[in-house]
Structure formats: C-alpha cells, structure tokens
C-alpha cells in the first residue's frame, strides 16, 4: 500500500468517547456530511469541538467510538477534514465504519498514550510507523484483507468491484 504519509496536528480526546458525544442523536436525521461535520463532538466539549480543523489527527484513549453504530459520526469526522484517528483501542463498529469509509484508524496503545494535544504527528501506513515529538512507533502488520479494503478506497469501491466480477462470471 502506498498511500501518502499523513501529517497533522493532534486533537486529544479521553477514554470511552462514545458516538453520542461524537455526534448527538438529535442529528441522526441529517445525512448531509457538511452539516454533520458542523455538529462533530458537540456532546463532548464545545471548546474541543470548535478547535478541530481540517488536517487534524484525532487521538483518543481506550474504547474510542463506543456505543451506537451511527456511521454519521465517521461522516462528520471526515467532513471536518480529520485525516486519521489514533486510539489505544477502538469499539468494533466504529472501527469498521472508519475502515469502510477509508478513514485511517490506527490502534496503538503506546502511541495513543504518548501523543499530546497540539503536537505534530506523522503516520506512514505504507511503512507502518507513527511518529510524534516523543517517540516513533511501529505498527503491527495489517491483515491482507484490510490492506485490500484500504487500497480500494473503502467498502463502496470494494463491493462495486465484486459486483462487476459477478456480472462478468454470468
């Protein structure tokens, strides 16, 4: 995989950041990504919500994205220009949603603990490294399926490719 390395400023969140604070339920009848993006983190802390800028990397503690399956939370992150999410651990549906939408989600407890609010971070998925001001961490090799999914650009193109393959077989 040869995606360009990601460089951005860290916005630091805590443990157990649930999808209700990422994108409150009141906005679940919204589907326009730009509008969802405006409500990102509204339930978490208005000050942090206001600070998120295009190009940022969100870094969280344990159990990032727990709770609801709402893909709206990931759509909101993407719409605000968040480039990647790093966490000590992810809740499984949130992680799926990131991977399916092609938003890099990096699980690395030591890196997630060390990266501080406001510092610069560099994530090179191709080389499998995360680099911050206080360290450089190696990522474990990715399962081939996930590499394929990211290379395709997410689940929509992946399914489109499979559907075409089915058509050709007929």
């Amino acid at each position: 995989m040869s995606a360009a390395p990601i460089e951005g400023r860290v916005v630091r969140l805590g443990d157990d950041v649930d999808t209700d604070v990422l994108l409150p339920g009141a906005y679940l009848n919204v589907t326009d990504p730009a509008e969802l993006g405006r409500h990102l983190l509204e339930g978490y802390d208005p000050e942090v919500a206001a600070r998120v800028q295009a190009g940022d990397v969100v870094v969280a503690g344990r159990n990032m994205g727990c709770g609801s399956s709402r893909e709206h939370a990931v759509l909101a992150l993407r719409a605000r220009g968040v480039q990647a999410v790093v966490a000590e651990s992810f809740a499984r549906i949130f992680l799926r949603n990131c991977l399916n939408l092609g938003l890099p989600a990096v699980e690395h407890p030591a890196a997630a603990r060390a990266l501080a609010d406001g510092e610069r971070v560099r994530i090179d998925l191709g080389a499998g490294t995360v680099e911050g001001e206080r360290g450089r961490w190696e990522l474990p090799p990715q399962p081939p399926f996930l590499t394929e999914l990211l290379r395709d650009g997410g689940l929509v193109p992946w399914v489109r490719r499979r559907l075409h393959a089915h058509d050709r077989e007929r």
Partner: protein
Amino acid sequence: MSAPRTMTAKILAAHGLEELTPGAFGLARVDRVLVNDVSGAVAIRELARMGAERVFDPGRVACVADHFWPAKDARSAEHVARLRAFAEAQGIEAYFEAGATPTAGIEHAVIAEAGLVRPGDLLVGGDSHTCTAGALGALGIGVGSTDLAAAMALGELWLRVPETTAVRFRGTPGPYATGKDLILALLGRIGVDGATYQALELSGPAIDALDVDGRLAVCNMAVEAGAKSGLVAADAATIAWLAPRLEDPSSLAPLAPDDGAAYEHEVEVDVDGMGPLVARPPSPGDVRPVDELGEAVRVDQVYVGNCANGMISDLRQLVDVVGGRRVAPGVRLIVVPATQEVHRQAVAEGLVEALLDAGAMVSPPTCGACFGGHMGVLAAGETAVATTNRNFRGRMGHRDSRVFLANAYVAGAAAVAGELVHPSEVVG
C-alpha cells in the same frame, strides 16, 4: 468426530466461514439484513453508489421505521418516505411502519415477534443493538450503513472472527432482580470495554430461568461491554415462544454449545441473592445496587421503553409497582411499549388503564427519547431513570442531563417515590 464447538463457531461455520481462528477475516453469508430509518437513510444512498440496483434477496431484508417515527419533523418524514419507497421498489415485504402496517415497533423487538429471527441465524443490522437477536440463539451483529449496503448488495459481509467468551451466572437472584440486572451485573464486573470484539455466550440457571423477554434484555446490552454479539442457548422456552410466530415451525431446533467447547475467555458472575442494580451516568458500566447509591437521586422523568425493556414483562413489572398508586408530583412517567403487539397485549391485560390511572403517559412504539430523538427529551439539569441501555452524556437530551439505567420495577418505584429507591420501599 470434529472438536466440540461453541454456538458462535457453529453459526459462523454454517454461514461459510472456513477459518475460525479468532482474528481471521472472512466473508459470511447473512440470513437477514435489518435496516432502520436512520441507518437506512445513508445505506440506500451507498447501495446506489455501489452500483447495485437490486438487493440480493428481498425476502431476507427487513426495514423498520422506528427511530424518528412517528415522524418527528419533515426531514424525518422524508427519510421514512424513502425507506418505504425503497422497500416497495425492491419488493421487501418485511416492512414495518407503525400506523400503516399490521404490526410495527422498535426493530429488534418487532423482528423477533414477526418470526424473522431463528436459532442459528446470522443477522446483520444497521444498529448496534442487533445483538438482541442472541436471545433467540441467533448471531446478531451490529454494523454501520456502508456495511448494511454491502450486505444488501452481496448477501455477504466481511467479518473478523471473534474471540468467544463463556459468561456463566451462578446462583439465584433475589426479588425484583430481572434479566436487566444480570447484564448490568456483568457490565459492572467487566466494564464497558471488557468484551471488545468478543462473542459472549451467556449461560447458567439464572439465564435458563428467564423468559424470552428477559433474555432479550440480557443480550441487548452485550454491545455495552463492547461485544460483537451476545448469545444464549435456544431451548424449549425459545421454541415455544417462536413456534406460533412462524409459518413453518417444523425446522426449529434447539442450539447449544457442545460439551467441552473451548472458549478464549471465561467469566463467572455470582448473582445469588442479588437485588436490583442501577448504572450511573455517564457509563453503563458504573453499576451499583439501587440501595447503595450513597446519595439521594431525585428524578424528573421515568422512561420505560426501548428495544429490549419495553416488552410485556417490563410493563407488567412496572404495573406491579405503580398500579393503584400515583406518580409523584413533579415527576413524569413515559411508557413506550416496544411494539404494537406489546401495546395491544398491555391494553388487553388492563396495564394501560392502570398506568393511565397512575398518571403515566403511554406512547406509540418508537425509539423516541431513548437516543434523545423526540418524545421525552431531557432539559439541562434534568435526571431520568430509564429502562434503556445507554446513559452516555447527553444520550437522552441536553449534555447536562443525567440518565440512570434500571429495570422496570426500579423505574416504577422511582416514579412513585420521586427518587431512586428499592422497589420494596414502595411496594412494602
């Protein structure tokens, strides 16, 4: 003979997964895809972007209007209109919209009632509480909208094989403890990420003794521990509950793990003599006995409803406490039967009348305020006791409101006393 297998392994193997080592990736065939008005609004769009004109099998897709239904506003009405049109265009007969279809209600309850969940099934739903289906011995997996679209397009979904955990409840719970309290006890024990990515198989005499409603409550909150699914064995009680709901019940069979099946993790929870529990905001894992909260918790609203705890058993428990009594001044009691069938049954049993006499409001079936959508949203500074499953910050409304999770007996006692108390203090 092959090695003894867990229920999860049996179901995954029966749906095309060859490699069953935890962490392996594979494609699983799905028996049922569950779409609601929120996840569907995005999934229908993604399905079109995938270039799929037809769903893989209209007989295997169920669409339910529940989150913002009856429509909260014009935008919600448009989403349900789109879902309705989608179901019609695709020939999806399992479409549920309260007021328009013979039965309807909150998705996880309504598909169970409609006989769309069978032991051994693999079900994916665009809702995290799809794990509720585990109450009937099915593997229910919650996913996001793009996954939902993929499952509708292909009839398959990519899965990572979970580690499987045996959760064994020991002993007999005390009075006023229900299925809700079993799962709260587990959450208090292992925490909100105590089972991340695991498949939980829950067992023990306290589980066996539960009716299907109680099992729905247990499996519903598996996701609150981070689990992929929560399963209980399908036994005679499961089959007796399901048989009248199926056109052809002859193929119904029990499902249990094989003797000696190997689990990656084992957890024992002692519930002997346990009383009712409460989860304090903002975490479903911050669990205490209701009489050991260490503070007086005055309540503004009591909410009895949601996909697992708005069943007929919950309404009966509620009426056991509030029947013949009055809701405390300044407290509002909102009751949301999970489905039209539950509502009808509650009317037939006189429960609705008893609730109205006590001062309660009874709503149509909806997700409503469970997720802060509508019909009972909290103001800043307000406190609710709810039989729902999440008490995250702002879950039911303003970010400075609080939600305590409890069973329907405790909810009833809070409605009458105006504060969180042990039900025996009200009933005597």
